[in-house]
């Protein structure tokens, strides 16, 4: 692989292709990722959108995109990508489009669609080796409707539909593992709070063909309960506590880009957010905090064993 053009923060793109003044919430971690993805991919990108927060990026007659946009439905954005990609290929072969009229096809979806009703269409697109980027902003709940529990909601988090003591008894679905089990061209986790890592991953994805996942953790001030100004700090804490591993799957192998040393205790992350406040007030929920810590420890222990 050729060397990355993104060696240091000063190399990060400053083209700012995405217009400002969107309807997203202040401090939206998802929007930060979309901004950078767009800057690296460029204007000849079409976003195929599944129902979610980002659907409100394009509200008639405005759009922050200089390129194209197609809103589909909640369940079938990857199938929309299939239709656009196939039609572009047909037209390139016919000679009715030139190579510089080609488009990078990107599905833009939240975790609600990605881990729920959109999973079938996503899985099938991987089977077909569809040449597309799947950009998921994971804010761990149905954020656009007020943060109800989704397949990506983490253990112990309180949501609008899991308001009980102890929060969600279930566990977060591992979308990255579902993707990599099916041997995509590329898969990576990333987040806006680590912009250099994100830029390199988009760059890698951009230059590959086939199904490519960019799974970004999207700290969500309104859904998680924190001040918008803390969005970047909370994203970094997700990485430093080991809750959100930065990794990529390439050439059939998973590589962890950063093994946090020292790994901060999970409560440093949990305490920053209202959705976990019930784990600390009125008294500490040692059991639940312990479960979350144990799951993170087990994950990293397995990583270390595999690396050894």
């Amino acid at each position, binding site marked *: 692989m050729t060397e990355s053009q993104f060696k240091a923060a000063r190399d990060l793109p400053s083209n700012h292709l995405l217009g400002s003044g969107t309807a997203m919430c202040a401090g939206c971690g998802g929007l930060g990722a979309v901004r950078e993805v767009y800057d690296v991919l460029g204007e000849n990108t079409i976003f195929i959108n599944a129902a979610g927060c980002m659907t409100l990026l394009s509200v008639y007659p405005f759009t922050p995109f200089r390129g194209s946009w197609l*809103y589909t*439905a909640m369940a079938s954005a990857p199938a929309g990508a299939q239709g656009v990609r196939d039609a572009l290929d047909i037209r390139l072969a016919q000679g009715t489009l030139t190579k510089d*009229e080609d488009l990078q096809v990107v599905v833009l979806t939240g975790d609600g669609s990605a881990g729920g009703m959109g999973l079938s269409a996503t899985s099938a697109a991987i089977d077909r080796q569809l040449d597309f980027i799947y950009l998921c902003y994971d804010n761990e709940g149905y954020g656009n409707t007020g943060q109800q529990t989704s397949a990506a909601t983490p253990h112990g988090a309180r949501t609008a539909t899991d308001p009980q003591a102890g929060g969600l008894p279930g566990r977060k679905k591992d979308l990255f593992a579902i993707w990599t089990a099916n041997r995509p061209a590329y898969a990576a986790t990333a987040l806006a709070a680590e912009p250099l890592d994100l830029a390199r991953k988009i760059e890698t994805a951009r230059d590959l063909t086939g199904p490519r996942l960019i799974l970004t953790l999207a700290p969500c001030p309104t859904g998680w309960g924190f001040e918008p100004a803390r969005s970047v700090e909370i994203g970094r804490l997700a990485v430093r506590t080991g809750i959100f591993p930065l990794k990529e799957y390439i050439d059939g192998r998973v590589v962890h880009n950063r093994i946090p040393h020292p790994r901060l205790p999970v409560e440093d992350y949990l305490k920053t957010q209202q959705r976990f406040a019930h784990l600390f007030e009125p008294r500490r929920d040692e059991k639940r905090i312990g479960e979350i810590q144990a799951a993170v420890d087990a994950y990293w222990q397995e990583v270390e064993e595999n690396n050894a």
Partner: protein
Amino acid sequence: MTRTLLTGNAAAAWGARLARIDYLPAFPITPQTEIIETVSRWIADDEMRCRMVMLESEHSMLTAAGAAASTGVRTFTATSSQGLLYGMEMLYTIAGWRVPLVLINVSRGLSAPITLEPDHNDILAARDSGCLQFHCATCQEVVDAILIAYRVAEQPQVRLPVIVNLDGFSLSFTREPVSLPDDETAARFLPAFRHDAGEFRGGRPASKAVAVIGGGAYSYFRYETHLAAMAAIDAYGEATRDFEQLFGRRYPSIECYRNDDAEISFVMIGSFATKAKEAVDRLRDAGHKVGLVRPFMLRPLPEADLRAALDGKAGIAVIDQNLAPGRGGILHGEVTSVLYGLKTRPAALLSYIGGLGGRDIGVEEFFQIAADVRAAIASGATPAPRLLYTQSELTDMRKMQAVAHVEAAGEELAS
């Protein structure tokens, strides 16, 4: 032009081939599957240049179809029954995208209970989707309807998907003689895909299906879709005039059979209308002035043509091969609203349900219907909608219920 024996499904595949489709997103379902299998063989044998892709559901299939048509390729797809309903969200959606494509629906009754055999509840569930609808009665019509559908769909003032409907089994698996247009004449009738300025391509940014806030913008776009559908009436007239010149076959929006001097008209859609034609001949032989009115185009509804066909008749029987529980026949409601307000509208407008799940409609039933209409004209009283069912069917049903150990049989159906 060659004349050959084809099933309705093969005719649909030939229609796609003659239309020189670029793209076929597909998903199998009985009784449609033969269409996509036929095209896949032609592609494999280099007889057809088309990209075909298997999707994992009809919902995805229709999404891919609409997205591809939005990117400027001639797109074809096909489904049936449960598949049409599974994709229903996207039928409304792609109509709103204002994309020209053709969807074949091979009609089949809906679950529950699950069945493979035909009726029209599937296609009529898509009635208000914004997709146009053509209803075929013969295999010849299937080929021709597809070519006409693309011509209409690709008109700039229309740009809507068209659903071409054919009945499962009675057309899909039935061989009939079909005149196949040759490639050159088909291409003269249907030129290359008509591109649109809003298609997706690099360097020409376009946003499609963006959200709107407020009823003003929403209503505007919805009204536009309605006006586009209405514009299809003239586009259809123009396309079928050209079609007749090139191929010699006429496709009025409403087919009328021995209807001009008829006192009583049957109204039906689809292939079961050929049973009504036979009954009309027999009734005429018996001295009754009966005719048949068969809408070929159901969306847009050609109201003027339908009125012209039915105004002044003494009585009408609408025979619906569908059932809206709690209401009755869907077509009956459409016909009633078209006739309302006409000074010389028929005095008797009767409603019948028949042909559900492939159930036959016998010629003796058409005789009974005609007798009912005559009685209603004479008495001035319109009977309640009738659910066609014979004594022997009820006897068979009772036997099955005995086998199934049904303890208390349901209410008796009128025989």
